[in-house]
């Protein structure tokens, strides 16, 4: 089951008197929607995502999930980070079942659910393996299964694939979106990566910094699963890049030129 997220007039300073990190954030994310937050480093993407997870309270405004204000973390809206943060003193199975264990779920039920999830993320053979011996991609899969175990309505991803190699990243991007779409989970992904945004989004929210605002947004009405080589994908990619540069042009920072060259080169190759 999904859940709608509403960002109601969120502004934030980490300390009274410090600079404004987020200002006047106002947006609705529909139930089951795949939204992507994109923006330069430091524009407050992680800050906003932590607020949706209930790990941080905004200094003004609030996050509502299904109309109810988020004031604390809950296993029903789950966040994944760039680092998998698995617990090395637990094996794969114990890591995945942890949320269920916290909720007091019976042993047999935990066992069944964990088996299903390990199957889903392709780690059925590794259930008793030490998590430290897994590759980065496998560790993120365990973290994904762990997040899914508590049947969350909302999945919040903070650049969870950015440390992975291109192949692993591509397959995980596809899998996560497919899983969330199949289960109707509302997905919010934070990224720097334009391709990742087009690959995963129903809608891309473009953030600018100093202070962090949602400056623009763009719908991506492409069919699933998405083909990065298709011309419609490339078209959306270019459109997003233009939008991004336009929005970014608002902030007086002298680097867009170099970034542009880098983006273009990627699209040629």
């Amino acid at each position, binding site marked *: 089951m999904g859940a709608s997220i509403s960002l109601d007039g969120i502004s934030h300073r980490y300390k009274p008197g410090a600079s404004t990190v987020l200002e006047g954030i106002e947006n609705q994310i529909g139930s089951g929607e795949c939204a992507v937050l994109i923006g330069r480093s430091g524009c407050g993407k992680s800050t906003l995502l932590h607020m949706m*997870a209930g*790990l941080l309270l905004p200094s003004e405004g609030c996050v509502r999930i299904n109309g109810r204000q988020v004031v604390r*973390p*809950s*296993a029903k809206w*789950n*966040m994944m*980070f760039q*680092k998998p*943060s698995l*617990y*090395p*003193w637990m094996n794969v199975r114990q890591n995945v079942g*942890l*949320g269920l*264990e*916290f*909720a007091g779920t019976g042993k047999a039920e935990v066992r069944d659910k964990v088996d299903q999830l390990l199957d889903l993320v392709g780690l059925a053979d590794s259930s008793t393996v*030490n998590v*430290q*011996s897994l590759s980065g991609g496998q560790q993120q899969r365990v973290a994904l299964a*762990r997040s899914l175990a*508590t049947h969350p309505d909302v999945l919040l991803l903070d650049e969870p694939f950015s440390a992975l190699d291109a192949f692993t990243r591509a397959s995980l991007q596809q899998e996560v979106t497919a899983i969330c779409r199949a289960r109707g989970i509302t997905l919010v992904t934070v990224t720097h990566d334009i391709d990742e945004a087009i690959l995963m989004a129903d809608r891309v929210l473009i953030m600018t910094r100093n202070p962090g605002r949602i400056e623009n947004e763009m719908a991506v009405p492409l069919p699933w699963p998405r083909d990065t080589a298709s011309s419609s994908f490339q078209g959306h990619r270019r459109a997003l890049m233009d939008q991004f540069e336009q929005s970014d042009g608002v902030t007086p920072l002298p680097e867009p030129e170099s970034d542009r060259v880098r983006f273009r080169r990627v699209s040629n190759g």
Partner: protein
Amino acid sequence: MKAATSPAAIAAPRQSGPGLLNRLQPVTYPLAGIAVMLFVWWLGGEYIASNPDTMIFASFAPGPTFVALWNMLGQASLWDAIGASLYRIGAGLFWGCLLGVPLGILVGYFTTARQMANVPFQFLRMVSPLAWMPLAVMIFDSWNGAIVFLILMASLWPILFSTAHGVKRIDPGWFKVARNLGASGPQMLRRIILPAVMMDMMAGIRLAVGVAWVVLVPAEYLGVTSGLGYAINDARDTLDYSALAAVVLVIGVIGYALDGLCGMLMRRFNWQLEG
């Protein structure tokens, strides 16, 4: 790793008796070290025996000591002394853990607690546990209780500081994920914090055992009529120097064994993958 193994690999073919020698390889140097220690001991004994001023202490030498040790091993009094000492150190360590671990977690987890505790704890830590003796004697109505208290004061700080250090080092991501998965306070403590700091805690306990064992002997010089410290004092009073040396030997061996036990426990609780 490579640099350490290759010289051994080169040297290996030169060994004449490959089977036995190779198997003895890991203990060769430790045995040599023990041999050197015994030799120095023996040399000291010879010197003392040859000097007319110190001749009466000649039974400190290895020969008489081992004879005395052999005799003592058959007597209940030695085992009683060992039992009494082990009980005191066990009780002291128990209280040290009971206070040190929660306090360490508190100080490691809460910045306010850390800032408040820093000066008092660093100050108290620098006071020799034995300095508490007069106070302990006043507070506790038995000498036994007083000694256990001294062991507690000796073992508290290593356990407390190691645990606090471990908690401070915990990956903040582990806390975030656990909170996100709906962990309650006790669940966080039991499933995340305690396992995460287990290694540091054990390292602290190992240090504590070392300090406590060292403090125990002088503590037992006072008041009590049991334990290894008392046995040393008793042997001195009866001028039984070979027995005195034998007790020193026993103290050293037990201390070594206790440390080895802690090392074993540390390996048992180590969740870090080697290599």
